[in-house]
Every structure is written in C-alpha cells, then in structure tokens.
C-alpha cells in the first residue's frame, strides 16, 4: 500500500474540500446579500442605491394584506392539493398492488412528474378554456359550462387539479413501493388469525406503509409550498388575487414592481418559515432517521 502519495495522504481533503468550499460560498454570499437587502429599501425603478432602513420592511409586511392573502392562499392550496393527492395516490396504490402489470402504470406516471411545470400550465390553460375539452365533456354530460378560471373559488380548484394531475403519481409510486415491501407472511398470519378486509388494512397494511406515507406527504408538502410555474401560466395569481402564492407575490414585487428591498424581506421571511416547516418534518417524520448512514 502506498501512503506517502499526496493522493493518499490528503485523499480526504482532495475529495471533500473543493465541493464544500464552493457550496459554502454559493450559499453564504447570496444569503448575506439577501439579509442585508432585507433591511434596506431598494427600488430598481428609482435608480437610487440601496439604503439601510432598519426594520421598515417589517412594518410594511405586517400591514401588507396582499402578503397575508398570498400566505393564506399558499397554505390553502398546498394542504388541499397534498390531501387530494394522498387520497388518490393511496386508493390507486391499493387497487394496483394486486395487479401483476403494475410496472406499466409506473412508467406512465413517471412521465407526468418530470414534464416541465410550464408545459403543464400551458396544457391546463387549454383544457380550462371556455371552449376547451373540460367544458365540452360537461356539456356532453348535460351540465352547463363552468368558468374554471373566472371565480376565485373555481380558480383555486383548477390550480389544485393541475397540481394533483402532476403529483398524484409521486404519492402513488412511493405508497406502492411501501405496499409491495410488506412481506406476504404478515397477510397470511393475519388470515390464519381470522383478520380480513378493513381490519386487515387498518392493523396490518397501514402500520407497515405509514413511514412511506409520511415521507411522501412531507416531501410533497414542502414542494407544494413553492408553487409558482403552473400559477404563472394558468391564472397569473388572479382572479382578484385568489391564486397568488408567496412565490408569485415575491417574484412580482421584486421583478415586476422593482421593489427589491421589500421583496428580499419577504423572501427572507419565507425562508425562515419554510426552514421551520422542514425542521419540524425532519423531526416528526423521522426523515433524518430514514436517511442516516
């Protein structure tokens, strides 16, 4: 064994240090910048340099009803979307798990998850059109036309449906993997003991797939809180701000209205809130434990 060679003596440093340093610079520099900008007023349109304004941005934020509205929208849309995805995904997984050709469904569903969200937005804008296919089906079934994107409530539902279309497969595949990892002996033993049907599901299946479910729901919820692309395409936050999410509102404040100081402060607030959510999930869900090496 050679141990005098630098590729041996300093192997650890050679492998780890470059990436670690680059990663730290890549995250620290923008974070410090964001933090500094959060306590400044800087308007792109005015041309003045950023000026330190202490906690003025916080005072604006507290009174900014649009911010709170977008926060409520984000939470509402995320929770409903993830709930629907979970119920659909679980039911689908339970149905498919008994079928031998489940791989077929997996391949189809994988595609939907990786389609650019922007294309999904475009696609659903077509589908929700007043003269689009969804209203066409409704009319064929004898219902009247629905304004999918015109009322605040319907617009939210439409956004949720698009998200459900893209991400139900994620739930489905993770839960299916969980289901298929339950050993057959468990079911056999339960059968011998005279357990079946709903009881079998509640006392045998459910506890076994619970870790997969919590993981899927946690990951999905964290992602859903960042919802942006689909909304930009389908409703652009409308009607009357009903589908404006945090990401979209911050984006618009920063790059449409040019108020970078205040947008930074909101972004920082969002970062802190999301960190809390992630930390809670890592704790409660045991994500850390699942992933440790």
């Amino acid at each position: 064994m050679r141990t005098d060679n630098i590729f041996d003596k300093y192997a650890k440093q050679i492998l780890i240090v470059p990436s670690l340093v680059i990663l730290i610079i890549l995250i620290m520099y923008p974070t410090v910048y964001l933090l500094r900008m959060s306590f400044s007023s800087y308007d792109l349109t005015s041309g003045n340099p950023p000026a330190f304004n202490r906690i003025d941005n916080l005072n604006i934020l507290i009174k900014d009803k649009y911010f709170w509205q977008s926060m409520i929208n984000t939470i509402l849309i995320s929770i409903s979307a993830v709930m629907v995805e979970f119920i659909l995904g679980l039911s689908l997984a339970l149905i498919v798990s008994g079928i031998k050709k489940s791989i077929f469904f997996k391949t189809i569903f994988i595609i939907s998850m990786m389609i650019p969200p922007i294309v999904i937005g475009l696609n659903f804008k077509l589908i929700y059109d007043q003269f689009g296919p969804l209203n066409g089906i409704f009319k064929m079934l004898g219902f009247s036309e629905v304004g999918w994107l015109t009322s605040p409530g319907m617009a939210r539902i439409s956004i949720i449906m698009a998200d459900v279309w893209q991400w139900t497969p994620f739930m489905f595949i993770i839960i299916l993997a969980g289901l298929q990892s339950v050993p057959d002996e468990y079911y056999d033993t339960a059968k011998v003991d005279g357990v079946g049907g709903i009881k079998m599901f509640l006392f045998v299946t459910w506890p076994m797939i619970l870790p997969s479910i919590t993981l899927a729901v946690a990951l999905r919820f964290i992602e859903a809180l960042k919802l942006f692309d689909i909304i930009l395409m389908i409703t652009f936050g409308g009607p009357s701000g009903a589908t404006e999410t945090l990401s979209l509102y911050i984006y618009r404040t920063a790059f449409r209205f040019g108020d970078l100081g205040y947008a930074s402060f909101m972004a920082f607030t969002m970062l802190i809130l999301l960190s809390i959510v992630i930390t809670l999930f890592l704790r409660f869900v045991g994500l850390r434990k699942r992933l440790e090496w």
Partner: protein
Amino acid sequence: MATISYWKIRKKLSVSIKYLLLFLVLIFFLFPVYWLILTSVKYPGDINSNPIVWITTRLTVDNFKLLFGYKGAVWGEKGYVGRSYMQSIAPFLINSIGIGTISTLIAMILGANFAYGIVRFNFGRQNLYTWLLSLRMIPPVVISIPMFLIFNTFRMLNTWTSLIIAYLLTNIPFVTLMLIGFFKDIPSDIPDAARIDGYTQVGAFYKVVLPLILPGLVAVFIISFLFNWNELLIAATLTTSDASQTFPVFTANFVQVERGTAWGIAAAGGVVGILPVVLLSSYIQKYMLRGLSMGAIR
C-alpha cells in the same frame, strides 16, 4: 350452489369495477398529454372550436415549422400567412441544453468527489446530510433575488455563466445526496482491495469505484439535467434575451405575449418541451423514485 355462484358474480363484479376505475384514472392522466399533442397538430380553426374537435385527420406540422422560425405561408387551405415575426425556439433550446448540461456536469464532478469523501471517511454525518437536504429545498424565489443582485453588480446578467452558477446551488446538493446512496451500496472491501493492488485512495475511487456505479451516474445526470430543463423562476429572473433565456422562459413569454391567439404553436412548444422526458423516461424510471425523494427511497 346458489351461494357459490353469488360469490363468483360478486367477485367478477368487483374485479370489473376495479378495472373500470383504473381505466378512468388512465384517461384522467393520459388525456392532457393527448390533448397537448393533438392541439399541436391541429389547424388554428380546429383549436378550441365549437363543436370541439376531439379527434381529427386534418393534421398539420405548420405549428412546428412556425415554432422553429419558418417565415413562409402556412396553414395552407385558406392561404393563411404565418407569423413571420415569430422568433424561432431553436436558440432557447440550445441555451437550455447547454446550460443544463454544463451545470450538471460541473455538479457531477464536484458532487461525486464530495459524496465519495463523505461516505469513505464518514464525514459530517447527519448534520451535513440535513444541511444538504435543506439546501436542496430552498425555494427558487429566495435564491433568485440575491442572485439577480449579485450578477447585476458583476454585469453578468443574461449570460450562460450566471445561470450555470445559480443552478449549481441546487445541483451540487442533489447530485451529492443521490450519489451518497449509490456509494453506500458499494462494500468498502472493494476500494480496500484496490489499494492493496497499489492504487491511491483517490485513484481507487476513479479507477475502481466510479465505473461500478456508472449506470447510476448516468441516471443522476439525466434527472439533474431534467430539473434544470424544467426550471423557470431563476431562469426568468437572470435572463433577458435569447442569448441565455431557456425553454420555459420562452414558453412563458410566448403565452403571455400571444394571449391565447397561437395555441397551436404554444402546444407545439409544449410537445418539444416534454420530448426529453419521454425519450429518457424508460432509462431513469428505475432511479426516479430515488431522485424525487432525494435518495430517501432506494
């Protein structure tokens, strides 16, 4: 006897209900894709028309021609002249492919070393893992604002470099997390044996361990590339022209400018956008779950 046939019927019924449900679900998931493709090959008059054209043989590739900057007369029949001012999508696709490939490649090189170092030397453990995971979960909008300001001061907005650097911030943690999983699956006897054969630590990694996980490396590359291919928010903030705007930015701008008048062309763009996923899905499908759960599920 009567009871047996009753059970048989009931069982058959429940099976057929099961398949009916599956069929409905399949339609729900396949219809939007079908509709996108159909719209992209329809004549303008057939798009969102009344009555709705569900299926048609009047097909055209003119939408694709226009999408790629064709300037002549199109949509035959009524002698409609195409939007000659329409910008070709080609440079945007090149930007997307170029930026995604370079950023992912750099992230792969850095991330592979990093991940192997972490596994081989038991570096950092849980805290490092949590840190990487949280980096991967930062909302793009939070990254985009300071990145915009930084690249603005360096006069680097609207360049490939700015986007490549910005994407590194999410690519490196992703690649590292994914590869940690792959390296952990390799028993440490293998590099140990290679070292007895005279390789250095680093040499053993490059010559012996890395080739072993080649299929995984390719899959991680593809998934990471696709994430960049799909990314809109950061690209939209850091770019302003076809010098560096990517495919999603093009599509977003196109739809906002055209306000729904050119659905056929927009749909053609959508079809181009999902091509990479469709082409690569069979290869990555084995690793996709790993990718989307950031290595949590093998």
